[in-house]
């Protein structure tokens, strides 16, 4: 059998540019961005505002996410079922949600039905009714979800980790959906009040992507959304507290007896999206724990078989989100896995990246760029990110050039500036008794063990 030993090269890449988009402004201040994507008949239209869980006062933790979900539970003209059915008849999926940084109401709809679909978006954004019974139901659902999160070792580890690394004053120390204490207090009145306080057309952007041939989006948007005036009580944006917990480097173990794996989180407060070295940080974290052959995954999975997957990265929010290295490992190897993780966090600082590592990461991030934007939803999502983080309009257009310019020095600088194992906390969810002695012997810092109260 003749086999071809020589690895093939590649042809010339077809030129690709992130789609151009145009800006308009409605009479009430709403920004409109249109991006024409020929032959993409399933449009995505999203109305987004940079208001999210991070903007909440401590006593209202979880309100933004719940309020966002409640937007589609009834308006002045329609109840929840009418709304859903109206959307479904259009073959549209109408969704309202919020996260740490932003809130959005969106619809994916065939091009021919954008007009009625925008009616639904406008209705939901501007005149939600927040029926008492529906808000109560959503509140109970979130309370039950909190119970489920505690029983799920992955979610429990995530929640324990942020609680450990952030100061109590920071909204980032608790889940975006709030805690039992704060969610219990949520009612329809709170939703209405937040709606009045936070929904400001002047801070909203409608982004529409897809085949817009023959559709005058600004005219349509002006008719559907342009008449909405902001309430007198609108607040401006706040500064988000992302302060680190004062206790510094420590090990916190949440006992889960009988666990066959330990969920490991190692890290500290990280970075926000708007940083001057964003591209170097992206390359660095791909090398450390983003690519399949990243240092962490190579060692923990492909060499030692400790885990199905190990990774690390920065959650870049409007303020500094967490940096974490993470893996779920079989209980028996918990301590060696932690040590190996810490070694890589040291290593990205002390063992500079090789040319091979640099190219692997850079080539991936540059090469995969066009693949990320196959659908209108993906394109609209990316533009939404630009809007929410206040990035320049050409951010995506110049992405690949900026990536190509990252060199080994920039990666090492980024690692030394932003990966700080000396400041890291370690959060573990697992069967404490199986590895506690080994953990103590490893001298990783002060250990606290939290066990379930006896039944």
């Amino acid at each position, binding site marked *: 059998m003749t086999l071809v030993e020589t690895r093939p090269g590649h042809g010339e890449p077809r030129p690709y540019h992130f789609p151009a988009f145009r800006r308009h402004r409605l009479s009430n201040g709403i920004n409109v961005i249109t991006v024409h994507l020929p032959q993409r008949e399933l449009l995505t239209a999203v109305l987004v505002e940079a208001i999210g869980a991070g903007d909440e006062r401590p006593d209202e933790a979880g309100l933004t996410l719940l309020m966002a979900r409640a937007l589609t539970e009834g308006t002045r003209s329609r109840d929840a079922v009418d709304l859903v059915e109206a959307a479904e*008849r259009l073959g549209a999926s109408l969704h309202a949600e919020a996260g740490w940084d932003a809130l959005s109401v969106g619809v994916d709809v065939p*091009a021919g039905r954008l007009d009625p679909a925008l009616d639904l978006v406008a209705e939901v954004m501007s005149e939600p009714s927040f029926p008492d019974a529906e808000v109560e139901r959503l509140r109970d659902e979130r309370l039950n979800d909190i119970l489920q999160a505690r029983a799920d070792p992955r979610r429990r580890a995530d929640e324990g980790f942020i609680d450990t690394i952030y100061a109590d004053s920071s909204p980032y120390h608790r889940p975006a959906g709030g805690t039992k204490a704060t969610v219990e207090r949520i009612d329809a009145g709170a939703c209405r009040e937040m709606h009045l306080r936070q929904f400001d057309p002047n801070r909203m952007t409608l982004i529409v992507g897809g085949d817009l041939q023959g559709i005058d989006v600004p005219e349509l948007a002006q008719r559907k959304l342009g008449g909405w005036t902001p309430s007198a009580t609108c607040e401006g944006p706040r500064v988000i507290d992302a302060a680190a917990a004062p206790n510094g480097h420590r090990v916190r173990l949440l006992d889960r007896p009988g666990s*066959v794996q330990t969920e490991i989180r190692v890290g500290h407060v990280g970075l926000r999206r708007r940083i001057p070295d964003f591209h170097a940080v992206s390359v660095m974290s791909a090398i450390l724990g983003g690519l399949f052959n990243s240092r962490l995954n190579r060692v923990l999975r492909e060499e030692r078989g400790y885990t199905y997957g190990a990774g690390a990265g920065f959650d870049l929010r409007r303020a500094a989100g967490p940096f974490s290295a993470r893996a779920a490992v079989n209980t028996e190897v918990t301590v060696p896995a932690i040590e190996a993780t810490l070694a890589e966090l040291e290593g990205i600082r002390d063992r500079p990246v090789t040319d091979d590592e640099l190219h692997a990461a850079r080539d991936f991030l540059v090469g995969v760029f066009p693949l990320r934007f196959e659908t209108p939803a993906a394109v609209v999502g990316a533009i939404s990110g630009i809007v929410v983080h206040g990035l320049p309009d050409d951010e995506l257009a110049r992405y690949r050039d900026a990536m190509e310019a990252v060199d080994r020095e920039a990666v090492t600088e980024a690692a030394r500036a932003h990966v700080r194992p000396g400041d890291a906390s370690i959060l573990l969810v697992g069967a404490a008794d199986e590895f506690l002695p080994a953990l103590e012997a490893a001298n990783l810092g002060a250990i606290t063990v939290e066990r379930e109260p006896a039944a």
Partner: protein
Amino acid sequence: MPIPTVAFSDERLPNGLRLIIAEDHLAPVVAVNIWYGVGSKHEVLGKTGFAHLFEHVMFQGSAHVGKAEHIALVQAAGGTCNGTTWLDRTNYFETLPSNQLELALWLEADRLATLPAALSQENLDNQREVVKNEKRWSYDNRPYGSWVEKVLAALYPPSHPYHHPTIGSMADLDAASLDDVAAFFRLHYAPNNAVLSIVGDVDPAQAREWVRRYFGPIPANPVLPARLPDMALPETLGGEVREIVPDRVPLARIIWGVRSPPFGDTRLDALDLAGQILAGGKGSRLHRRLVREDRLAQDVALFSMGLVGGASLTCGWATARPGVDLERFEATFWEELERMTREPVSDDELARAKALTEADELGALMRVEERADRLSMYATLLDDPGMINRMLPRYLAVTADQIRDVCASVFVPDNRLVLTYVPAGAAEPAEAAA
């Protein structure tokens, strides 16, 4: 919206490799997808989990590719890749910038042709540990995680190839030897057991040339197709099987499974629409009744896993709110399913379900990776890649009577497994923990 049609070519190499090519020059992207006609249904007792373990081994190198280098090369080319194993099949796929097509084809051909050259005890041992951790992460260390294994074990008899889960058992994984793996490869991994689909910004003539060059020399395996035991099954289970499963969960959950028509049967189309109407979103019957109105459920789900060997598996669940009476909870659930067996759904419900299905299908087909996978799927499981263009029209042609008929044959008391997961230590299983 007019239904877009996927235009494709379909041919076989002399060695039996089926090659399907579909052009789409809208984006500078190409998807490569290869389905092998081997799944966990080809495993025998004592050797479960092999198909999936083997899928992992496929990424461990071949004669001209190092350990984990397949993924490294694809990522460095600006691509993504993965593989998955299921009961009926194993698939491998890469999506890359279109100028990197040749590399993907060369990589797939090299491992099909020469994998045994790189097969080593060290790599096998390593991936065995990885797979065992995958099992722990996906099933053993998860609330409600045992449900998949239980549903399969109850709905398919012990002698049936679908009886055991694809992930296998720890004992069988530990027992897997290098010889086992080599034998598995020799039997199942051959060009005449493979469908290769290439979709996207591709020059078909150039693609064919590369495929011939790299795959052409690989010999067919004349022993294929591998023998399988008779997979025929009665349409119904023949009874109701019930199990209470105490688990480390805060909320009780009823998980159920039923036998349903096999993949490709038009009755399954009607059942898919029934699934939309019953649980496909906030306008669905189960959501409205259980979640919204009666406030009994935290969440509901219903979906079918289309299988070709005897019967598909339709399953779902409803998670009970705290303090809910589980008997009443379950009764309400079956009441809604039984209503579907008696009364035809309304015109409006049917229209909405079809609109949602259409949006789902069109959304999925927008991506070249998904298009390539479906072409391979229809070719492998139904010997009919053209189904990619006929599936949506089939859904849109389903009538309310057809929905009622298939529900009447599937949602019957003697065709179900009912698992009730309850919080461990709950004194009275009939009550969800308050």
